[in-house]
Every structure is written in C-alpha cells, then in structure tokens.
C-alpha cells in the first residue's frame, strides 16, 4: 500500500481550482448571513411579540435541523412547488449555486443572530443605565454603547461560526457544485485513492481554518486595546 505522491502533486492544483467557488460560497453567505442576523436580532429584541415570535420560530427551525436537509429541501424540494417555479426568485433557486447560497445564508443567519444576542445580553446593565441617566435615547444607547461592547464580546463565538460556515460549504458538493470538496470527490471516484486526495484537501481546509482564526485574533486584539489584561 503505497502513498502516491505524484497523484497528490497532480491533484492539488485541480482542487485549488475549486477554492474560488469555496470562497464565493463562504464570503457571500457570510455577508448575507450577517445582514440577515442583524435584522433577526433587532426583531428578536424589539419587545414586540409579533416580531420576536416568528424570529424565535425561524431560529429554532434552522438550528434544530441538519444543514444537509436544509440544502436538499431548497435544491431538490422547492422545484416541486409551483409558486416557486413561477416566482421571480426562480432563476436563483434553479441553480445549485443559488440554492447553496440561500441555504447557507438562512442557516448561518439563525446561528449568528443568537451569537449577536448573546453579545448584547452580555453588556453590563450598569453601562446602559449610565447612558440612560445621561439622557441618551434608547436608539443612541444601542448604537453607541451596547453595540461596540457586544461586538467585542461575541467575536470569539462569531469566528467559530465562520469556521463552521466554511466547513458547511463543503456540503455544496452534494448538489453537484465543484468546489474543493466536489473536485476532490470526483478525483477519488476516478482514481480510488481516498487517502491521498482527501488528506490533501483536508490540509487545504486546515490552512483556511488557521487563516480565519488568525484574522479574527487580529481583529479581537485591535478591539481589545482598551481592555486591561488581568495581571
């Protein structure tokens, strides 16, 4: 049983061709998901039941079901429904890429909104009271006091979620997309060399993970300049 290094050398460039798609899936879903998460958060903490309740149901469903199932529902399932086929979204939902983005966005949006909410809840009550005592309106307090502190608090959890999102992009390979995982699976199917190929692509993913962690570590450091480290 030999380790075919030649195969690895040959395959890595091919798999790296998939990295473009991996990045697109990651960045687009992360950006859209964050926007969605902010909207969900504001609805959730609005204090109005007709905004908060649907949000809680949404989050419950998307965090309680496997993302693979969500992808399948959107890609394989939605075409069954006539009103989807007739809608303006159909061009997006017809394509595997569009479906993957939609699924990943909806999923990460649910998780990130809870992470943001955790950050908001972690802001010391006294600081909000001090803002109120100074006469700041609720909106001003949220923008200038709560948000900056909440963001710093939820960075660790958020960076973990971005890594999870990156790992989830690999599931796009199950709906025919040729991201890194998709290409890897294709090569393995042709060459029957799972160790060489899968381990190589694993290394690439680990490098990406490391890179994401470093970036967030840098951001956290910058945002924590004002925090005194415990001596």
């Amino acid at each position, binding site marked *: 049983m030999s380790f075919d290094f030649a195969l690895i050398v040959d395959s890595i460039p091919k798999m790296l061709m998939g990295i473009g798609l991996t990045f697109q899936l990651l960045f687009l879903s992360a950006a859209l998901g964050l926007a969605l998460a902010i909207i969900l958060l504001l609805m959730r903490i609005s204090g109005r039941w007709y905004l908060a309740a649907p949000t809680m149901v949404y989050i419950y469903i998307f965090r309680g079901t496997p993302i693979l199932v969500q992808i399948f529902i959107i890609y394989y399932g939605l075409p069954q429904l006539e009103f989807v086929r007739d809608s303006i979204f159909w061009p997006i939902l017809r394509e595997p890429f569009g479906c993957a983005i939609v699924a990943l966005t909806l999923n990460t949006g649910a998780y990130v909104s809870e992470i943001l909410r955790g950050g908001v809840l972690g802001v010391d009550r006294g600081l909000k009271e*001090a803002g109120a005592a100074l006469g*700041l309106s609720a909106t001003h307090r949220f923008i200038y006091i709560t948000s900056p502190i909440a963001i710093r608090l939820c960075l660790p959890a958020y960076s973990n979620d971005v890594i999870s999102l990156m790992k989830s992009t690999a599931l796009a390979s199950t709906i025919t997309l040729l991201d890194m995982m998709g290409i890897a699976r294709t090569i393995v199917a042709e060459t029957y060399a799972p160790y060489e190929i899968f381990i190589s692509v694993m290394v690439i993913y680990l490098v990406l993970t490391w890179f994401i962690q470093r970036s967030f570590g840098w951001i956290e450091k910058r945002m924590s300049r*004002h*925090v005194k480290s415990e001596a």
Partner: protein
Amino acid sequence: MSDGDGTNIIELENVDKFFGAFQALKNISLSVKKGERIVVCGPSGSGKSTLIRCINRLEEHDNGKIVVNGHELTSDVKDINAVRREVGMVFQNFNLFPHLTVIGNLMLAPKLVRKSSKSEARDTAMKYLERVKIPEQADKWPSQLSGGQQQRVAIARALCMNPEVMLFDEPTSALDPEMISEVLDVMTDLAQEGMTMIVVTHEMGFARSVADSVVFMDAGEIVEMNPPKEFFDNPKNERTKLFLSQILTH
C-alpha cells in the same frame, strides 16, 4: 416641610414602589429645594437607592407623584429624557464606558443629546476634567485609571450635561479606603458651589460637614429627617438611634 409654591426642584408625594410582592418604597414624601444638599442613609434594603433611581426614572414608581424641575414623571418618553438631561447621576460602580477614552466618555452625551459640536463638547469636557483635577488623563482608557480617578471621571461626565441636580448612589462604597477622600473632596467642592445634591452614602463625616438635611430610611420608609447637628446629636427615633450606634462605633 413641603413648600408647594415652585421653589422645590424635586418633589415626591406619597410614592410607593413594588418589586413584585416586595414593597421597596412606602408612602414616601420628600421635597428638595434648589441648592439643598440631602444625604440619605440607612441599612441595606432600606430603599435608599430605589428612591433616587425613581427620581431619574431608572426605576418606575407605582403610586404617588414625582416632579423634577417642573416635569412630572410619567411614562411619556419626552418627559423622561427632559428630566434626565437636568439630573446627573453617579453610580457606585462608576459605569464608565470601557470602549471610549476618558474624554470620549465625557463628550458622548453632550454631542448626542445637547447636539454640541465636537469642539464645544471637548472644551466643556476639559473644563470639568480640570474641575475634578485629572485633566492629564483625558486620552486614557478607563481601565487604566484607579478607582478614585474613574469615579471622578464619572462625576465630570455627569457635570458635562450641566445638570440642575446631581444624584449620587453610594459613590464611595466600591472604592479602596485611600481613594475615598479624593472623591468626597470633589463632591464637597461641588456642594460649596451651590449644586443641588442628593447623596446616598455611609460616609457620615461628609454628611456632617456638607449636608443641609440627613434622611434616615429603613424598610422603605423615611424614618427621620433633620439637619445634621440634630440628626447625629439628638436622634429622635429608636431605629435611627440603633442604626447610628451600629455605624458610628468603629
């Protein structure tokens, strides 16, 4: 005691406050004239913090009437913010905004609430930083300052809004003993300049030298209220006598 004709800057009439089934304030009536310095003392749980927190509506009273500087406190948002602009508060735990520098802390509210320009806000901020004797700390982060310095910044922050009344909620209780006097000195200066103040504190030396009236609260009620000399030398109520004997013997 109550003066009805408008020289009272703060007026509480028959105020009750409940937290669930627990009654924190029982039928409180109190008047504060402009320029008056009131010290409120009492055992923990007596309702003293709740009392001053009702004045700037950090707590909402359940019965009775509270009027601050001509505004009656109701659930109307406009009124609440109008009151809070005129009433400054200093907290036991300072509550400085950690993500803003010292001067940032001072400039935030004037810019947002009084719509001051950046330079106006900065000038006001530096003026009050000098008042509390730490102008050189302007660009530091709160976490870099000692407790006493942080509390002085908190006082300056409240003063930047040019309030008519200052409320102090146990301002020195969280400080190490050697820093208490620097804060009390600032408060004494403020009093001597004519600021109307209500101070919840255990610092009886401060009460004796600065207060016009000392209020003793216990179990949600105002038990006794007198000028300091009367209060300390000739307490009338048994509960007051008990409290004084407990805190003055060390």
